[in-house]
């Protein structure tokens, strides 16, 4: 359980995140939605200690996140940001091996290698494992990074726009993999996501941000409704039920 209490962040006198309180439930997928500049990524970065917060607290299983030991925290919570323009020559397998760093500090044992193999298998990357990262497509690269996070084997996984720049097929693959990680491995996943229909079909819990404030928070059924979405995005939605999923129509 992650409790975010009254967290704020100010950049040059603009409150990007303004007193947000959110509860992230264990064993669920929680999606942060909202327009550009609503503060989703900033909130995610503060929850994952990538940037310091100005006010408030983030409690991971009851303890403030910044008081954790760096290495211990890296065994419990992992985070993946959207800009992964890596400049070093590194193969997929080597990247995934880095996921074991918090445990091994660089010296891989047999059980680590087994976990790395499993992570590569989990993301269907066996065919690419010896290819260099800069030779891969955006979707393959994203899967390699997610495989690294799986190898890191943390209870909490935070992802900032994992579908960014991916086509529909790869987006679906990534979301299905995240769903399986929650259902089969018992992970807790938090994502920042722009595609409202992917959020609707795959998440358990949705948090809506607007102008740095949390305007709505609830289960997917409560959140994917015409009234809530109109308020969050300032535009008209038409939520339809298709094959048991709530699909938002807003294109025309």
């Amino acid at each position, binding site marked *: 359980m992650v409790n975010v209490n009254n967290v704020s962040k100010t*950049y040059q006198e603009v409150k990007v995140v303004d007193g947000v309180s959110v509860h992230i439930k264990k064993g669920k997928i929680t999606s942060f939605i909202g327009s550009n500049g609503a503060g989703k990524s900033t909130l995610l970065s503060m929850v*994952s*200690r*990538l940037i*310091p917060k100005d006010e408030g607290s983030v409690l991971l299983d009851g303890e403030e996140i910044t008081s954790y030991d*760096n*290495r*211990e*925290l*890296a*065994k419990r919570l*992992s*985070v*993946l*940001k959207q800009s*992964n323009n*890596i*400049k*070093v*020559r*590194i193969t997929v397998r*080597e*990247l995934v091996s*880095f*996921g074991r*760093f*918090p445990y091994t*500090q*660089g010296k891989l044992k047999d059980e680590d290698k087994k976990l790395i193999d499993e992570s590569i298998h989990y993301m269907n990357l066996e065919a690419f494992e010896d290819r260099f990262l800069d030779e891969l497509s955006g979707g393959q690269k994203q899967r390699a990074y997610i495989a690294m996070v799986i190898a*890191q084997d943390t209870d909490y996984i935070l992802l900032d726009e994992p579908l960014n720049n991916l086509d529909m097929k790869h987006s679906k693959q990534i979301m299905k993999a995240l769903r399986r990680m929650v259902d089969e491995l018992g992970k807790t996943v938090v994502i920042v996501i722009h595609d409202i229909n992917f959020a609707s079909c795959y998440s358990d819990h949705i948090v809506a941000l607007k102008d740095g404030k949390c305007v709505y928070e609830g289960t997917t059924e409560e959140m994917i409704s015409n009234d809530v979405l109109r308020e969050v995005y300032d535009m008209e939605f038409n939520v339809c039920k298709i094959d048991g999923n709530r699909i938002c129509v807003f294109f025309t």
Partner: protein
Amino acid sequence: MGYNKKLVLLLSLSVLSIVLFVFWDIGEYWDYALPRRLEKAWAIVMTGAAIATSTVIFQTITNNRILTPSLIGFDSLYVLLQTAIVFFLGGGTLVMMNNQFHFLLSVGLMVVFALLLFLFIFKREGKNIYFLLLIGIILGTFFSSISDFLQVLIDPNEFLIVQDAMFASFNNTNTELLLLGGVLLLCATLYLLRYAKYLDVLSLGKEEAVNLGVDYDGVVKRLLGIIAVYVAVATALVGPITFLGLIVANVAHEVFKTYRHNYLIPGAIFVSIFSLLTGQWFVEHIFTFSTTISVIINFIGGIYFIYLLIKENDAW
């Protein structure tokens, strides 16, 4: 070719260059020449290793292969320190000053500068490594302008003393400082070994390093301090060699094509030793001391730098 094979090849090249440098045309008075040549070779090996290591680490921290420590003003600070001593205390002071004391003073001031630069910028929030670099480049220009200004004002005879300290040359290496420099480098290297395991992770970038449980600010601060010691020792021994680090770090990256520092750093050290010793051999036997090695290094390095800028034009 495997990484180990390449490393052995580079090692043999550098050993070969040491042998060439020490024994070529040694003549019949070898009992006079040999200790002097060995001393010089030792100074070159130390300088080469220090510049190579500091540049590779610096490029890893900044995730950029065009930047070097001299770019954030480390070299120009050294020149400013020497100029300031001559300007305020007179040329006699630099000549008379206890060499070891002067050396430790320079190294100490440079480490303090590196840490101040770091603390000043990193204590203010939202600032990143690029801001640090920008400030460093501006400070570097500022330091050289002040040095120029002071040099114009001083007596021409005293200017010669400053000039002597400003240009890299192994012909007038400070052999007295070899032992002290060696001890300092050894201490810095032992300290570096404790943080070496983080280097590979740092090459993935700041966010990945934090995600993987690295105390980013603490580790980068210590690494910058170590870099400052390396640069200070190398500069105090022979003077600034701007482009050497750039060349050797990039050659090491090209040869090994990996992120692993247990290959990159030794590789860069061997390339550095090889190029310095063969360069110095050319200076002594082909150009018969009509030029200094820094001219050669800066000539080749400058061309390589332009090549890098053109080649990597759209890659960064």
